[in-house]
């Protein structure tokens, strides 16, 4: 009758073993060594060998060929002490991997030797549940969801456009959301500003939004900026975020936000509405046009009635603001085709969308040739934004 000791002995005699010292030497020498951690999820949370892939033994046989497609590549397997990895290495051998070794002493020994280790980004059980519908989308998945949780998005205005954008960004798990608004919730806002509610009348909008979003998703850190954004504070505020959502209600703010965001290399997802019509575009500095390329100047007040004078259909900002959130997700995660170099228009009376081209204006005072191409100097956002933003039609 074979017992555990016999089984271990047999497996050990069939495979190669290596040491943490040797593994570290090979990794530091730049060898393309596949390192596989076969511990359970809760063990890996406290650290793993830098660059190692984690595949717990419960899914090992079914998933390892996807994780390590090249059976000729050298593979080192480790666990906590070097027992489970012996059996995993034996399994790999049986699956046809030709250069497999188990790391003696495992991660405990690695840590005792004082070698570097990384703390993996893992989802806890409640996050796996909350984001389940994202995690099974190949375009988002674990990696995309992690990008969302690490992203910082600033929403200018917790009003008609900001409300749906904030709700969906928080629901999607955008980790840090800044809300800039100096206004107080009023009863006449509630026809469209759905992030607030009747109990919040008289409360600062940024605070009210924070309360709603925190209840929707406790993963999200909501920063309430209870002031009006202007030229003096915009650069510092915008610099702290990856993507800006412009849901403001006046031209001054829109140009201030644009100019600061271009200077800092931050993408702005623009939305604006009037009565029954809205428009939307994504401005990625130097990759596509900016707001001033689209409209070089604001109209004088007599030619620019605002929504409080002219009215606005409540559901309209709901549609446009939701589309803004959709743009933000694409920029952060990196899938799809952002609305760069394109302006989407929406007419709520006819339920018609239109699209026109927006070109980068070479004479733009902010992002044109005269302004100098500061792209290299700009503190450009995360890689996904630039990789996927693409070049606009020009």
């Amino acid at each position: 009758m074979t017992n555990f000791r016999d089984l271990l002995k047999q497996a050990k005699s069939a495979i190669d073993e290596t040491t943490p010292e040797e593994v570290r030497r090979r990794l530091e020498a730049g060898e393309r060594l596949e390192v596989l951690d076969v511990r359970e999820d809760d063990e890996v949370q406290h650290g793993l060998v830098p660059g190692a892939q984690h595949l717990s033994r419960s899914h090992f046989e079914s998933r390892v060929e996807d994780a390590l497609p090249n059976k000729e590549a050298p593979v080192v397997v480790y666990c906590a002490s070097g027992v489970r990895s012996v059996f995993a290495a034996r399994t790999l051998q049986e699956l046809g991997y030709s250069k497999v070794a188990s790391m003696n002493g495992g991660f405990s020994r690695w840590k005792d030797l004082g070698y570097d280790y990384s703390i993996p980004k893992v989802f806890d059980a409640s996050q796996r549940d909350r984001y389940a519908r994202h995690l099974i989308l190949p375009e988002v998945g674990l990696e995309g969801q992690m990008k969302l949780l690490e992203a910082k998005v600033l929403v200018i205005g917790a009003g008609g456009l900001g409300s749906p954008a904030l709700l969906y960004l928080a629901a999607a798990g955008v980790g840090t959301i800044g809300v800039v608004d100096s206004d107080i919730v009023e009863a006449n806002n509630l026809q469209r500003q759905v992030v607030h509610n009747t109990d919040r009348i008289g409360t600062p909008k940024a605070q009210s939004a924070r309360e709603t979003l925190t209840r929707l998703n406790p993963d999200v850190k909501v920063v309430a900026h209870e002031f009006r954004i202007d030229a003096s504070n915009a650069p510092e505020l915008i610099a702290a975020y990856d993507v800006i959502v412009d849901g403001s209600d006046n031209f001054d703010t829109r140009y201030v936000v644009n100019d600061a965001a271009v200077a800092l290399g931050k993408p702005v997802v623009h939305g604006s509405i009037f009565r029954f019509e809205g428009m939307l575009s994504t401005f990625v500095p130097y990759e596509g046009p900016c707001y001033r390329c689209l409209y070089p100047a604001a109209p004088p007040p007599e030619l620019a009635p605002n929504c409080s004078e002219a009215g606005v259909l409540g559901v309209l900002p709901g549609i446009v603001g939701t589309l803004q959130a959709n743009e933000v997700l694409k920029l952060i995660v990196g899938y799809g085709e952002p609305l760069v170099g394109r302006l989407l228009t929406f007419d709520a009376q006819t339920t018609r969308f239109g699209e026109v081209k927006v070109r980068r204006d070479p004479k733009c005072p902010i992002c044109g040739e005269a302004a100098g191409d500061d792209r290299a100097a700009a503190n450009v956002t995360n890689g996904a934004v630039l990789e996927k933003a693409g070049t606009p039609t020009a």
Partner: protein
Amino acid sequence: MSVEVRIPTVFRRFTNQEAVASLEPGTIADLVAQLERRYPGIGDQLLAEDRQLHRFINVYLNDEDIRYLNKLETQVSEGDTVSLLPSVAGG
């Protein structure tokens, strides 16, 4: 066949709330003149004192901004669609 000009909400107070105007082909400047004859007052909304387009109004021939075509001299043919798109700030 004629040219279809889409009128945005902001200007519909001049057009008895009509959302589309069917006009004769010509240059954009010709179309603006036709609009002004039909709907007095709308011309000043589109053109500044120097008779150029206001910098906060974009005009598109189909999906192309006329600033990158031939500006007000851009020729519009039968079947084309012209869209007027003023800058709006509401949020």
